[in-house]
């Protein structure tokens, strides 16, 4: 409960919600597209997770700071402009300093713009809250998205390429499961993960009810 102490009960609740019942991927099924496309290798998943978290936090700061100024009628376009600018920043940074990863992640960095987690959080949370809680919420959601991506990527890279972070894990006779390195493999895994997480949640809520 160390986290609870530094953040205070209100912010702690935000984090707990993002990682639990309001988990962006498992509960709200947001950001599925990129989770399927990018989770074939752990290094790609980490880059994507960091990218999305950065864009989320930056968007949180901008939207919550300007929340009194943003006209109601153009708020969605405003989110898009803000998100798009930060996505370009992430893309350029990857191209300049991590060319290898940039090549692998390719067009999916650009698609962060359409990642519903960011739009969803902007509309549901950042526009109504102050900067600090918004940043906490952005971090928590980014973290939830990243760990999901990385967990799926670990399984996919291990089965699909026999490696983790390009380090050989499987014995040399290992036959790669090609399906795991392609999008359908991610579908199976993500489906399983959502099933398991919901089952756990249901079990949890039942015991609470008793």
């Amino acid at each position: 409960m160390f986290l609870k102490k530094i953040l205070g009960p209100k912010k702690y609740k935000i984090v707990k919600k993002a990682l639990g019942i309001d988990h962006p991927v498992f509960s709200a099924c947001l950001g599925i597209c990129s989770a399927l496309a990018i989770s074939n290798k752990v290094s790609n998943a980490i880059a994507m997770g960091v990218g999305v978290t950065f864009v989320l936090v930056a968007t949180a700061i901008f939207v919550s700071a300007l929340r009194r100024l943003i006209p109601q009628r153009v708020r969605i376009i405003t989110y898009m402009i803000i998100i798009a600018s930060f996505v370009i920043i992430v893309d350029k940074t990857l191209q300049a300093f991590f060319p290898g990863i940039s090549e692998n992640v390719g067009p999916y960095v650009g698609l962060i713009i359409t990642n519903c987690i960011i739009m969803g959080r902007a509309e549901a949370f950042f526009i109504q809250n102050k900067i600090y809680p918004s940043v906490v919420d952005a971090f928590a959601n980014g973290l939830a998205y990243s760990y999901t991506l990385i967990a799926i990527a670990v399984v996919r890279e291990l089965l699909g390429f026999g490696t983790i972070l390009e380090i050989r894990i499987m014995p040399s006779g290992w036959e790669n499961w090609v399906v795991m390195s392609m999008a359908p493999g991610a579908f199976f895994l993500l489906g399983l993960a959502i099933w398991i997480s919901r089952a756990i949640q249901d079990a949890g809520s039942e015991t609470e009810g008793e």
Partner: protein
Amino acid sequence: MKSKITMILFVLILGSSLTTALVTVDSFTREPIARNKAKKLQKGILSSLNIEYGEDDPNEIFSANVETITTPGDKPKKFYRSKTSGDIAFEISGTGVQGEINATIALSPDLGQIRGISIVGQKETPGLGSRIGEAEFLNKFKDKNITSGKDKNITSGIAIVASGKAAADNEIDGITGATLSCNALEELINSELKKYVVMFRESQ
């Protein structure tokens, strides 16, 4: 009136702050991005020309061993000649199964044989089509004839055939499981060769 002023203020604040951020990032990243791109091309050219280079900056080895020839005309094309062997290398590109394939190819000085080929960028299916980028496959292109018949000036191109079936001196064993990508690669190599070999001859 007040709402209009708020609107203008809002657009100004948002526009100026985001533009500043983008311009700053651009000024920091423009040079490294251009450098990465040039480096990748240089590495591709060097490996097609079979010139060894270390893992770090290929620039020095490139400028010491390779001479750049630019054709005149509206659409200049760059050819790269090895100073030691006289082999000619150039960039080729075309569509693969999943997206664009960019490669570099090196030919013998008489433009009759392939000396080397390397894939600079591709988006083929990981584990299947992407294997066209593996060195084991690309090494098979070495010393293949791209001319047929008596007239050595006519470029007929190569053929990627089923694995283990290569017999003629322009045939290359394909990869099982990467048939479509191999076909796409064959088509792209042949059409680009026909185009650029003629262009290079004319410029000489």
